[in-house]
């Protein structure tokens, strides 16, 4: 692939590109799905191709192909230049790229056991054992289990001298327990909804989940939810589990702080942001307890890598410190809008060789506070505990949100009590984060993968992650139906 990438790069420069980068990508995905004792799907997909991004006259062009014969690659490089020339006919402001050191090297996800080398029967046996354990629970209608493995190998070369080779290995696994009743469907997922655990690493991380051991408890909860009351409507104190807060961070912080959205580049599709460049250092995003960090180095997190698709190395950037906005997610093109000397914090990623890199949120964490979940519940006294995302919606400026969860429990006397079904909560971003008055500590802090982050046209799906611990919010609207 390196030879093909170099071929494309030379052709693009020869055709007139003032800047060019070429990604040669080989992406493999294995997905396994079972329902009860039936194997519903076993599939391996391999995608390989080359994506060529060029600047001509300060405008971008991009062309990509899966057909890797020499003439096809050369023609695609020339097409990228033609596309850029067309872009230049509707240009207001030429692109200027923040500097980055032209890096050379390799990076690979640390892991113990390559999931693609694990025998298929072993993986299926684990999933079938999980669904069998769940189906031991009386009243459960279905149990589903799934596992995924992704290996993405990228060769990146640029006209500035970048020459990088990276292999990102990611895994997922989980079980869903589904109870169907009269006009009700209830689901409890372990360890999370939407493909379960999702992280970077090897099969050892999926095997350690003990899906079969955990499935019965979640199956029992799914059945119990069928006869539980709906979470009553009102305003109340809520403690939100880390797995739900992860998506709260995703929707109301991660997307809101993408500088391309702030600049209006996503206005026609997913929208813009309530955040402006003038808000840096000023906007009170949340209470003083709220600290949010972009960290592409977090071990085992789904959004971890060695360098982004512009060759910018992974790193750590505080976004919100003590509740005040300090930084944004940037790229080489957008960083100069923050300041003349600003550089990219390395968030540009494409979901395949066929896509252009966009600012993606990678790993964004809500930093932990203090104490255990039990201490937080004890301190709370009364309220509701909401866990595991079921649905999500937020407006095009990332302000007005509404989430649904799989289950809620009443907090009474500092302990979890009565179970409620179909819980929802809603709010406005800075009001909500401003109402945060307690966050559990490192012992309750986990990283949750989000494998289905959508953005861009044509739509791209990114795998990202968020660390969070259960946290308490006061006077929150709940029970919207």
């Amino acid at each position, binding site marked *: 692939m390196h030879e093909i990438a170099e071929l494309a790069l030379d052709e693009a420069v020869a055709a007139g590109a003032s800047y060019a980068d070429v990604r040669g990508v080989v992406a493999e995905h294995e997905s396994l799905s079972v329902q009860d004792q039936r194997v519903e799907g076993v599939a*391996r997909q391999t995608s390989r191709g080359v994506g060529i991004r060029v600047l001509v006259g300060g405008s971008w062009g991009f062309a990509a*192909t899966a057909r890797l014969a020499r003439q096809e690659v050369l023609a695609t490089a020339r097409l990228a230049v033609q596309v850029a020339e067309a872009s230049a006919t509707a240009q207001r402001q030429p692109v200027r790229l923040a500097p980055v050191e032209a890096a050379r090297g390799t990076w690979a996800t640390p892991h113990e056991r390559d999931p693609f080398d694990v025998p298929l029967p072993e993986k299926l046996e684990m999933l079938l054992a999980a669904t069998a354990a769940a189906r031991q629970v009386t009243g459960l209608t279905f149990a589903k289990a799934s596992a995924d493995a992704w290996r993405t190998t990228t060769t990146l070369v640029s006209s500035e001298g970048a020459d990088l080779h990276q292999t990102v290995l990611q895994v997922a696994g989980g079980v869903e327990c589904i109870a169907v009743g009269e006009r009700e469907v209830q689901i409890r997922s372990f360890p999370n909804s939407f493909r379960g655990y999702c992280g970077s690493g090897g099969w050892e991380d999926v095997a350690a989940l003990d899906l079969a051991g955990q499935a019965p408890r979640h199956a029992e909860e799914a059945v119990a939810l069928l006869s539980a009351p709906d979470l009553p409507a009102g305003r109340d104190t809520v403690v939100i589990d880390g797995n739900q807060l992860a998506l709260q961070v995703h929707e109301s912080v991660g997307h809101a702080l993408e500088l391309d959205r702030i600049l209006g580049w996503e206005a026609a599709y997913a929208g813009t942001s309530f955040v402006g460049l003038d808000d840096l250092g000023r906007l009170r995003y949340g209470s003083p307890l709220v600290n949010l960090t972009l960290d592409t180095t977090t071990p085992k997190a789904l959004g971890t890598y060695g360098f982004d698709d512009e060759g910018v190395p992974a790193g750590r950037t505080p976004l919100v410190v003590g509740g005040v906005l300090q930084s944004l997610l940037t790229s080489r093109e957008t960083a100069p809008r923050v300041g003349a000397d600003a550089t990219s914090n390395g968030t540009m990623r494409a979901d395949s060789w066929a896509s252009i890199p966009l600012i993606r949120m990678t790993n964004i964490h809500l930093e932990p506070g203090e104490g255990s979940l039990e201490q937080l519940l004890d301190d709370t006294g009364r309220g509701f505990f909401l866990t595991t995302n079921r649905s999500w919606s937020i407006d095009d400026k990332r302000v007005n949100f509404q989430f649904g969860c799989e289950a809620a429990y009443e907090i009474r006397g500092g302990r979890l009590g009565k179970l409620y079904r179909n819980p929802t909560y809603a709010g406005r971003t800075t009001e909500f984060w401003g109402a945060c008055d307690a966050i559990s500590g490192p012992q309750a802090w986990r990283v949750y993968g989000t494998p289905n982050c959508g953005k861009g046209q044509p739509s791209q799906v990114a795998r990202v992650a968020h660390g969070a611990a259960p946290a308490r919010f006061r006077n929150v609207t709940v029970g919207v*139906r």
Partner: protein
Amino acid sequence: MTAPVGREAIERLADAALERAGRSAAGVEVVVQHAAGGLTRFANSQIHQNVATADLSVGVRVVTGDGRVGVAGAHTDDPATVADTVDRALEIARVSPPDPEFPGLAPPAGHAEVPVDDATLGMSPGGRAAVVRGLLDEVPPDFEAAGAFSTDLSELGVFTTAGQRAYSAVTSVQLSAVVTGPSSSGYAEQGGRALTEIDPAAAGRVASAKARAGASPVELGPGSWPVVLEPAATGTLVQFLAYLGFGGRDHLEGRAFTAGRLGERVVDEQVTIADDALARETVGLPFDWEGTPKQRVVLVGEGVAVAVVHDRHTARRSGGASTGHGLPAPNPYGPLPVNPIMAPGDGGSVADLVAGLERGLLVTRLHYTNVVHPLETSITGMTRDGTFLVEDGRVVRAVCNLRFTQSILAALASVDAVSTETAYASELFFGGSRFPAVRLPAFEFTSSTTYG
């Protein structure tokens, strides 16, 4: 310029795979897809992203004599890689347990032909940029435009050892624009199978006029309002209703509201919804990913839930035949109606529907809609790009965006009017089709924002 790979080249790839897999497997299905085209994206009234891509993929599903199934795929036209893909599918099947529910592969069946638009195929990067400039020329200098214009070709071939040999090509075009002013935004969208569906100047004018009309919106509190939903907003309801209620698998498993309710009146008799990939209102292929010809399936006929869609697996479970709604294998989600369209009524234009609204809201478009309760068909989302207060049949002022939380069945239980006019619209999670506008006596808004 986008050049088709063509039936012959696709058949050559498929036949090589069929021949190799057929030596070891009892049944083989080969799916070859070529997707090529360009998308020119603009923001702040300039082109900022511009792509041209060509992808060719081969998917192989094999089944052994004792019902073991394996699926593998690769994005390639390299014969050696295709051979490796076949071998991988065979290896997966060898170590997988038998699937007693495997329904067999698609038998020979003819399918309809769909027209391919040469003008779409001939569109160059320069041509796309010219369309974008044509739209931008209509945007007032104090407004900014963002959007995308795409021209695409998709070729699909499905070949089985049971004898099916289906090939089709389809072209599609889509132009969308959001024009933004100091306190408001407006939206326009066009699309279909051919370039003649695209009028960039008209799109620029519509989105700009909407943005200007939406200036200085006022905040409304939550509450139930009579509404006129423009075609894009109607389309969101229709597409979510189809997704939630009319997939054969969810229906059979009791996870769709249609379970046990086919034949019942579920919405107003003015509502008829069909899934019809061949209709001029939508863009679809004439057969599904299993090679079964697509049928027009009436989902809701004059308010009555009529039928759900099936692939070969759910057809076998239900004792019927596939309606041609299978998705790419392996598919743990079941068949889905991916080309739902709603029949227009006799209500005239959007303006006519507004004229019949004594006091209520005109909603241009819904945003980031998601499911709250699947069996109640309850969804939540936001209005965007133009929400207006109507009094005595006239738009009197713009209002800030509102959040709705609403059962689709409840919203459509009583329909005042369905427009005669239709317009093309797509939704964040679904493809595009033409939809009418509707006037409804009640729609539940649960919270608000401070901007339009």
